[in-house]
């Protein structure tokens, strides 16, 4: 898998970007210059202060250091992103495997269920649910996870459908293997890589969902994610104060992580799904090594 990543330059870039984000999130307490939990006493000059030596990215509406908030904010975004995707992967994988392998009435029922989830607009539904159950971190993770599995389910189902027709499955049946053995030994291990690749892409969607919810004010009030930072900046006059640093930092953070996941996810998907690779006919001129090499040897 690492070898595949190395071959694609975009994949390497994505992995690098993701790595940086993970480091920032893990080592936040050591990397951040200020502790965002600490109460500070501010004066009017400290609010939306421009970037300076003390505050490299300036301060926000409460006088807090934007850089520290930014670094700590990565934790929430990444945590929600990864956790929610794990839930989606689990649900989507289970639904896809059962629908694809067993088929029949159960399979049809599951696919209709998937269609329902696909058709419902995710964001409005998320907003409604979070507004009802309350914006705790766990609730948000659950909601995003429960609405994000449809793509995985479809893909896993397609894979399972095609795998169960393969000759090594027939061989296993001829040996006397039952469904459980075939699922465990043949279907699941071959579906897993694509599922992982797909999940990485789902992570980027989950992070976007979380950021959107927080931006709309439905984030967990006890933690500050990037979306939350954007929310505060918008609603508390960053624009009129021309405090671009309060908007750019969290915005870029979101873009950075989403882009990283997309690059890595796409590379993994190409690596695991041979049908995505393309073979092009060579251009005519390059096909012949070079005119001077063609000699008449009689």
């Amino acid at each position: 898998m690492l070898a595949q990543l190395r071959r694609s330059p975009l994949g390497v870039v994505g992995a690098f970007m993701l790595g940086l984000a993970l480091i920032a999130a893990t080592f936040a307490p050591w990397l951040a210059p200020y502790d965002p939990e600490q109460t500070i006493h501010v004066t009017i000059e400290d609010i939306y202060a421009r970037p300076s030596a003390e505050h490299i990215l300036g301060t926000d509406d409460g006088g807090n250091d934007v850089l520290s908030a930014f670094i700590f904010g990565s934790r929430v975004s990444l945590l929600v992103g990864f956790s929610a995707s794990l839930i989606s992967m689990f649900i989507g994988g289970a639904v896809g495997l059962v629908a694809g392998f067993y088929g029949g009435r159960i399979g049809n029922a599951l696919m209709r269920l998937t269609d329902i989830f696909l058709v419902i607009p995710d964001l409005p539904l998320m907003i409604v649910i979070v507004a009802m159950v309350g914006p705790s971190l766990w609730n948000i993770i659950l909601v995003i996870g429960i609405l994000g599995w449809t793509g995985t389910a479809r893909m896993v189902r397609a894979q399972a459908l095609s795998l169960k027709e393969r000759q090594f499955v027939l061989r296993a049946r001829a040996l006397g293997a039952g469904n459980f053995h075939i699922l465990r030994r043949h279907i699941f291990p071959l579906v897993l890589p694509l599922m992982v690749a797909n999940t990485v892409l789902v992570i980027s969607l989950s992070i976007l969902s979380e950021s959107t919810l927080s931006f709309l004010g439905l984030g967990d009030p006890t933690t500050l994610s990037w979306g939350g930072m954007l929310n505060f900046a918008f609603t508390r006059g960053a624009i009129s104060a021309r405090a671009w640093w309060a908007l750019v930092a969290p915005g870029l953070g979101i873009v950075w992580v989403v882009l990283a996941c997309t690059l890595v996810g796409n590379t993994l998907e190409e690596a695991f799904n041979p049908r995505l690779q393309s073979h092009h006919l060579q251009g005519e001129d390059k096909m012949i090594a070079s005119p001077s090499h063609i000699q008449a040897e009689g």
Partner: protein
Amino acid sequence: MSAALPAGDAGIRPAADTVLEVEGLFKHFPLPRGLLGALLGRPGRVVHAVDGVSFTLARGEILALVGESGCGKTTTALALMGLQPASAGSIRFNGQDVTHLSEHPGGVPRAMVAALDGAAYRREPSVAPALTLKRLRRQIQMVFQDPYESLNPRATVYEAVAEPLEVHGLEQDRESRLNRVRGALEDAGLKPAQAYLNRLPHELSGGQRQRVVIAGALVLEPSLLIADEPVSMLDVSIRAELLNLLDELRSRRGISILYITHDLGTAACFTDRIAVMYLGRIVEIGPTRRVLADPQHPYTRALLSVVPVPNPRLRRTRQILGGETPNPIDLPRGCRFRPRCPVAVERCAEVDPSLTPLGDGHEAACLLLDGARLLNSA
């Protein structure tokens, strides 16, 4: 439906050394009628994949089942393996009737059977579960055509060969399982076995992969091996060693082999008896040398006349039959080969011939026999 029961002594020989007796085996796949057809009460159409097949297989015997795509040879094999429940007829293995054993969920998906046999088949609904089928599978094993597809690309050789043991819960002890796997690999010609245990399929050549599949079939010590086109996808220069391996397994271990192929050439060189199938029936059966030297059924003659031979100086008349093998859905009246038969007469449209014994275990299903020989044109 007239079952083509053999009348002569080449048919059912319920002797003690008979491993397999197939009698009047039928496998029909019903086609969907559609709403209009159902409303109008039209009878459903049926794919007559296997339409009355009977033969026996003795211990340590190699029988070739030969025919073109769509003739029903692969479906017959799947029925014998219990992967497709028979529509009618009986299968006796070592004297025991095993026809109605089945497994839940039953059947092999249509696409797989179609891919194996090139005709249009439909999936059979599942039948009630039974435990004995699994035990039967230990006695009858199968080797498939495509060495690149028969093995899970992510399973090591050890895992692939140990899989049958795992499925049947045998040799739980790691050490004894390892020994058995090693033994099977060496019996299949992969020596030293240790070197192959941790390899993945893509690291092996086609011939080596096929040997791994054979090892997997041997590890349960079966008495019958069904080989469906085992060498068709391998390079010509290594086919002989694999066929020799099968021959060796027969002589050293007394395993009976049903060798299914469309390639008359390989069937000729290492099998004891040969059965030629056309549209779901056996049209000619007998000792291989005899059938090939003196074929009696017009279809067998035509086939043998067109098989290419690596001898440019050999001049022979090729009897190229027109058209393609018709579909096994709408069968003609009388003899099913009549529409393409070069020597058909009027009576052939009325009577459906059954296998006529010609002595020495040689039988053919053609009205123009009758004890008398067809004019030799070869």
